[in-house]
């Protein structure tokens, strides 16, 4: 190409833009003035205009809609949605807590040392897509705080037990979830409940890996002797505090805590009544481990129980 006048070179971008419908009115006016006196640029303008139309035609080419691609995308998205857990870390009186949920329900409540989500088991779990997002778990957090502040006795959340390690663990968690507010049961009792009376240690392990502490109240499961024995690793102090929130006292004994199991009301398996620990009925029951103990008449009655008509705990309440 022979050397174009500098004016033509300078105006070419504007000319191309105007010819292809991409310029403003001021640009159009300048181009108009120039092409009126410059034949090569007039020709170039026409070429750009035709090119603009050819490109527009190309852009309008009706392609077959990518139905197959769309179907594949939707199936991948459905899978991703199922695997997605939304989480956020919140401060609490028990330390930082990570709360996560899926489409199906709450899937993780985790005591998070130092509030570092990077150390969460969420990030170590294969097949889980963890996305930090507050909106969906904020409500859960508020309800959990109300629970810890004694303003709420139930967390009626849909649960997603996908992070439990096995079906055995899920059965342990399901049985634990049945223990009422303000009550305790023993590890041996849970083992009996799920039909594996010898699996006491396995029950303790399942609860150690409980993905939903507080919500699935593993703090209500204690040793047969009444010793708290353990919680979330070595956080037995938290267990004592959670039980205290529910009105279950635990006193320190050496490096553990102990609940006054002989000074608590008792529900026998399958019964709708609660008894004094001295009730004659208790000596005759088949599975003594399966009893549930309540710290107060109020919590037993809140769980829907009525006073035993033999031992009459309503007339002879336990001294506190």
């Amino acid at each position: 190409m022979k050397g174009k006048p500098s004016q033509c070179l300078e105006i070419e971008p504007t000319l191309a833009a105007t010819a292809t419908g991409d310029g403003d009115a001021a640009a159009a006016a300048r181009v108009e003035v120039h092409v009126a006196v410059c034949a090569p640029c007039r020709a170039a303008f026409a070429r750009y205009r035709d090119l603009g139309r050819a490109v527009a035609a190309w852009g309008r080419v009706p392609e077959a809609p990518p139905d197959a691609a769309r179907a594949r995308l939707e199936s991948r998205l459905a899978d991703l949605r199922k695997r997605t857990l939304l989480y956020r870390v919140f401060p609490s009186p028990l330390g930082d807590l990570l709360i996560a949920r899926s489409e199906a329900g709450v899937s993780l409540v985790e005591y998070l040392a130092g509030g570092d989500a990077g150390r969460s088991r969420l990030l170590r779990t294969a097949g889980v897509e963890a996305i930090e997002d507050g909106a969906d778990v904020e409500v859960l957090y508020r309800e959990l705080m109300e629970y810890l502040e004694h303003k709420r006795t139930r967390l009626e959340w849909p649960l997603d037990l996908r992070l439990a390690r096995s079906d055995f663990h899920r059965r342990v968690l399901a049985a634990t979830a049945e223990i009422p507010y303000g009550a305790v049961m023993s590890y041996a009792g849970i083992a009996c409940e799920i039909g594996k009376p010898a699996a006491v240690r396995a029950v303790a392990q399942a609860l150690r890996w409980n993905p939903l502490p507080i919500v699935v109240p593993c703090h209500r499961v204690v040793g047969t002797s009444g010793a708290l024995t353990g919680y979330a690793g070595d956080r037995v102090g938290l267990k004592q505090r959670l039980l205290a929130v529910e009105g279950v006292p635990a006193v320190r004994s050496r490096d553990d805590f102990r609940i006054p199991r002989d000074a608590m009301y008792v529900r026998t398996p399958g019964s709708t009544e609660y008894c004094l620990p001295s009730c004659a009925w208790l000596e005759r029951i088949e599975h003594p481990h399966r009893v549930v103990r309540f710290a107060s008449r109020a919590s037993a009655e809140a769980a829907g129980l009525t006073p035993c008509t033999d031992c009459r705990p309503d007339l002879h309440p336990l001294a506190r």
Partner: protein
Amino acid sequence: MSVMGQPPFDAVVAAHHGEIHRYLRRATARASEADDLSQETFLRAYRAYRTLTPEANVRAWLFTIATNLARNHFRSESRRRRAHAEVRATRATAATEGPEHTALYNEARARVEALVARLPQKQRLAFVLRRVHDLDYDTIARSLDCSSESARAHVFQALRKIRVSLDGQELPHQE
């Protein structure tokens, strides 16, 4: 408590998948890559969708994700060359569709497509984003990590190259 509020992401897919797919088809010149890259675009978008502010322009945002993916995809120049060799090989078949289009018209279109495919990457992407999908220069600039002046210059350079390549050839068009 209600189950997690179903995000209207399905609506985003319904509204934009076709266009993003067509864009990637033009940007990469291969249907199989458009399938993969558009899928990846929406999977990424799904992961980040919740962090988007309510007033965000979802369409522009999707184009930005798609453009980034296309750019990464073509970082390997040899891959790009292979793709373009394929475009040239399929030109003949691409020009024989739709009874309502004349063969000449189709040929012009096919020539444009082949020329676009040969453009340097940034020019090609800027050109397609602007001329086919009508995105504004700010969005194009964001997608390509450049100023909006450079985005404008990329589009012009693309136009100029195509014009020069087509010099002396008729460009029939239908109104």
